[in-house]
Structures are given as C-alpha cells and as structure tokens.
C-alpha cells in the first residue's frame, strides 16, 4: 500500500543589505578587501566595545516589510543568540527573537512568517594541514564580513515542489532587487537560502518531520537539492522508517546529501534581550520614509507593461521580474523610435540569448543602440537576419547599429537593380517553383526566397523579396503577408 506523499517546503532566506556600513558599527562594507582591514573594536568583539544600530538598515528592513505586505511592529527589540564559533567574535550574534521588525505578509500566495534584522558572521577559511598546532588543521578568520547587516525572511511551509520553490525565490530576488536594498547575488553571498523540507500524505494538514538543507548557493542547486532531499525522505518513509530531524548539506557535484551537525550538538541559544541596545519604535516618520522610497514592484510593473504598452502577459512578466532587463527595456523605449512590442521581443529574446544570465549589463550594447536597431528593422532598412548579426557585434563591441551595418555591408538590399536582378535570375533557374507560385501554392515561394536570401547573405528584407518575386511573376502583392 502506497500513500501519495506531498512535499512541504519552507524557505529561510538571508539577504545582505546594501548599506554603506555594518549593522552595529561604522566600518565600511566592501567586497574582496584584504583580510581584517574593515574592522573595529565593535565588530571584532574587543572588550568594552558596544553596538549601535544602523538607521539605514532599519529603513531597508521596513521597505522589505512593506513590499511583502507584512505587519510592521510598532516596537521591536534585539536579542542575543549565544553560541561559540570562531566566526562569531562576541560569542553571540545580535539578532531578533520574539519581537521582530515585521510579521506576517505574503508574496505570490506564499505566506511570510517573519522578517527580522541581524548581523552576519565573519569568514572562516579552512587552510588545510600545516605543520603548526601539532599537525592539526588550521582555519583562519577574516572579520571584514562580520557585522554586515542581514535581513532574515522566513516563509511558512507553503511551497510544494522544488520548481515552485525556485521560482518563488527568483520572484523574491526580483522584488528585493527592485527595492534596491541588496545586490541579492547568490554567487557573492548577498542572497543565501536554506530550505526546510518534509513530506506528508497528500490531503493531510499535519506536518511531517522536517530537515533543514543549508546554504544552497545557486537557484539551480536549490532546486536540485530540494528534489534530492524529497527523494531521500520518500525512500525512508516508503521503507517504513522515520525521517530524523537534522541539518543537511547538498553536494551538487555528487548529488549526495550529508548530515552537517551531529545530534549531540543540539544548540541551546539561550536567547535574552540585548541589554546593550534599546528598542526600535517605528515612528510615523520612519514609515513615511520607507513608503516614499518604495519603487514600482515587479507585479505592478508587469501589469503596467501589459496594460499601457500592449505587451503579452508572458513577455511583460519576463521583463518585470528580471529587473535588469526591465530597466534596460524602459530606457531603450524612452529613446523613441521603436515599437514597444517589437522592442520587448528583441530585449526579452535576442538580447537575453546573447548575454550571460540574461543581464544586459554584461554586454556593451546600449539601450539607445538597441532601440535604433529595432527601428531599423521595422523601417525595413535592415533585415531581421542582418539585424541579428549587428546585435552580435553591438553586444561584443558596442557602437551604433547604422555604423556597424554599413561597415559590414549589412544594409538591406533595396536597390531595385541589384535585388531585382537576383530575383529574376533565381526565378529563371527554378521555373518549376515559379510555376507553383503562379498556380497559387502558398508554400512554393519558399523555394525561391531561400536561394535569394542565401545569395544576399540575409541582407535582403524578406518582405521586399516576396514583393519582388510576385511582381516579377506578375502576381499582385498580398496584403499583410508575413515575410
């Protein structure tokens, strides 16, 4: 007897805030700085040092709360989370416990449990065997990252598949990116996600034992890790055994799931209110400032692109939820000259295909150049095929489309003698095809268009070629025929 099992997934996300300084001290945040050059008595936990809250971190926290539709606490406090680890200089992390900054809320149907502020740990680098310390292995601590402001976002277990978890996380990322509160870059560690995974019989409302999958550092690994864990739990349950609550690590290379913490190390964090800090009372001024700083969020942007610019739902969604693309698109649109729908297709299709991670900033093409390119195609001064070649050049080297097209001789062939001559010759070389076209066979024209396009190396405008063929065969031009 086999009961159908449903995955239940919750996410715990850590976001490094894009403030100028750390959460509790004025050390400047950076990336890739020489070790231990961005520290002070506070963030290395020297005796006598005291924390002071970064006002901008609160501001960003409130903006995140607004974006997620949370209840913003009128009063919130910090707590100490006590444990020992070399990357934790005070022997406790200043975090929030039962009085967090924000509670409740939801995003795309997934409920948010809470949003709170805390400080990031330092970086521990394992440097392997050395002759020192009696031959045991060494780790080295770099405190530059220690104290970076973090927002922790915890969802309710409302996700039910690895793909859904990934998509939701991508949506969250887009939202946070739009807010400008974080770089949310998984490669650089400014976005980190843990997943809580359990299984239960479909239709049941009780929750099964959950495991925690930690620190999956890409969207793909998250999806694969969660999928692997679901399978692992399924196998256990179907064999009649019980899932053990534990913290796990997914190795994307081998696909293996291993335990991170032994059971003996059950942590007792001994939370108590942080006596070195005073409560945060969310004032009207703070709320106003957070509201005023809210940009257009992805869902609203998608709606606007559909409604005001006539984009299709899928294309609008794509551009709205990939913030860099959407920004590029709207800047290109603002240059004028290009049809919104055509431009959207070029940005969301051709440009994405040519840029790493679909980020136009990873290339040299400018919004103005792309806008001009699209206008050229619409105006038939460049064929679609030629335009794609021009875009390759623009992406790799920059520049403007007119110049690039001219340099490579890619301008549309529209001189009647040149093209008309080619059309006449091709028709003469394939009388059978010509006959079929005259007879009204709609597909036959392809046999003539093909050779013409090849000979002109795609420079001819398809619609123009069709017109010339029909003209040469004495047929009327067909209205609205696609090239």
């Amino acid at each position, binding site marked *: 007897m086999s009961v159908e099992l449903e995955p239940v997934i919750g996410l715990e996300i850590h976001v490094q805030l894009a403030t100028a300084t750390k959460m509790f001290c004025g050390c400047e945040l950076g990336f890739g700085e020489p070790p*231990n*050059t961005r520290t002070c008595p506070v963030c290395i936990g020297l005796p006598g040092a005291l924390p002071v809250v970064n006002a901008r971190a609160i501001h960003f926290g409130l903006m995140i709360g607004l974006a997620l539709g949370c209840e913003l606490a009128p009063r919130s406090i910090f707590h100490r989370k006590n444990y020992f680890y070399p990357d934790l200089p005070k022997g406790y992390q200043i975090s929030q416990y039962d009085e967090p900054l924000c509670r409740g809320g939801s995003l795309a149907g997934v409920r948010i449990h809470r949003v709170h502020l805390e400080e990031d740990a330092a970086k521990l680098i394992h440097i392997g065997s050395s002759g020192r310390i009696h031959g045991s292995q060494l*780790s080295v601590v770099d405190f530059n990252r220690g104290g970076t402001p973090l927002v922790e976002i915890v969802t309710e277990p409302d996700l039910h598949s690895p793909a859904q978890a990934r998509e939701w996380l991508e949506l969250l990322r887009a939202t946070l990116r739009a807010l400008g509160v974080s770089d949310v870059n998984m490669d650089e560690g400014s976005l980190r996600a843990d997943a809580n995974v359990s299984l239960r019989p479909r239709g049941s409302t009780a929750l099964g034992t959950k495991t925690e999958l930690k620190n999956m550092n890409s969207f793909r690994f998250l999806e694969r890790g969660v999928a692997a864990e679901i399978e692992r739990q399924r196998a256990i349950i179907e064999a009649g055994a019980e899932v053990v609550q534990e913290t796990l690590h997914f190795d994307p290379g081998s696909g293996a799931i291993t335990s991170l913490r032994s059971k003996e190390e059950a942590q007792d964090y001994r939370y108590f209110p942080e006596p070195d800090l005073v*409560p945060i*009372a969310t004032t009207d001024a703070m709320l106003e400032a957070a509201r005023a700083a809210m940009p257009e969020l992805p869902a609203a942007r998608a709606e606007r692109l559909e409604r005001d610019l006539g984009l299709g739902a899928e294309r609008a969604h794509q551009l709205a939820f990939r913030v860099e693309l959407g920004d590029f698109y709207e800047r290109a649109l603002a240059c004028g000259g290009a049809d919104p729908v055509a431009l959207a297709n070029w940005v969301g299709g051709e440009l994405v295909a040519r840029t790493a991670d679909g980020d136009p900033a990873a290339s040299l093409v400018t919004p103005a150049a792309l806008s001009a390119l699209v206008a050229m195609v619409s105006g038939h001064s460049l064929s679609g095929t030629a335009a794609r070649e021009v875009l390759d050049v623009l992406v790799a080297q920059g520049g403007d489309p007119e110049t690039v097209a001219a340099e490579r001789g890619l301008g549309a062939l529209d001189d009647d003698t040149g093209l008309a001559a080619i059309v006449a010759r091709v028709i003469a070389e394939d009388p059978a095809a010509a006959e079929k076209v005259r007879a009204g066979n709609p597909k036959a024209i392809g046999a003539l268009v093909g050779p013409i396009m090849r000979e002109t190396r795609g420079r001819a405008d398809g619609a123009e070629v069709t017109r010339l063929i029909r003209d040469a065969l004495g047929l009327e031009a067909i209205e609205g025929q696609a090239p």
Partner: protein
Amino acid sequence: MIEREEVRHVARLARLALSDEEVDRMAVELAGVLDHIATIEQLDLDAVEPTSHVVAVENALRADVPQPSLARDLVLASAPAVADDGFAVPSPQA
C-alpha cells in the same frame, strides 16, 4: 540539588573544562546559590511586565556613514596566533 550531568551540560554550553572534582564542587556551590534564588519562585508575578531595558530610551540609531576602521596591525596585535593576515584557530572540522 543540581545533578552532575546537568553541571556537565551547562559547562559544555559555557565552554568550560571542568574536572570531575570541579564538577562536584560546582554542583554544591550552585545548589547553595540556587536555593537562595528560589525565594523569587514564591512571588506572584503573573501580572508584572519584565524589565528588559532600564533606560526609557528608544531609537538610539546611527547614520549610515563610514567611519575609519582600525589598522590591521592593531587588529592583529593581541592575537594569540596569526596566519595569512587573519586569526588562526584549530579548524572546526578537525
């Protein structure tokens, strides 16, 4: 009374090495103090708010403006062990 196992557990949480003799002595000393502290168990405190902050101050915030960090040689000056410009410790994985 406080059990030996409990003392060992608390010592583990506090990262204090205690010999068997120290565990026993600690059990007795802690028990004495805990007995005295137990007087607060009798009080009726249900309707009382806990004081977590004595000062009636809120929103002690700092502008997000960079301040100079400490020079690295000062940072590492008191370090018991240094490697690769950082604080060297036995590896947690070891």
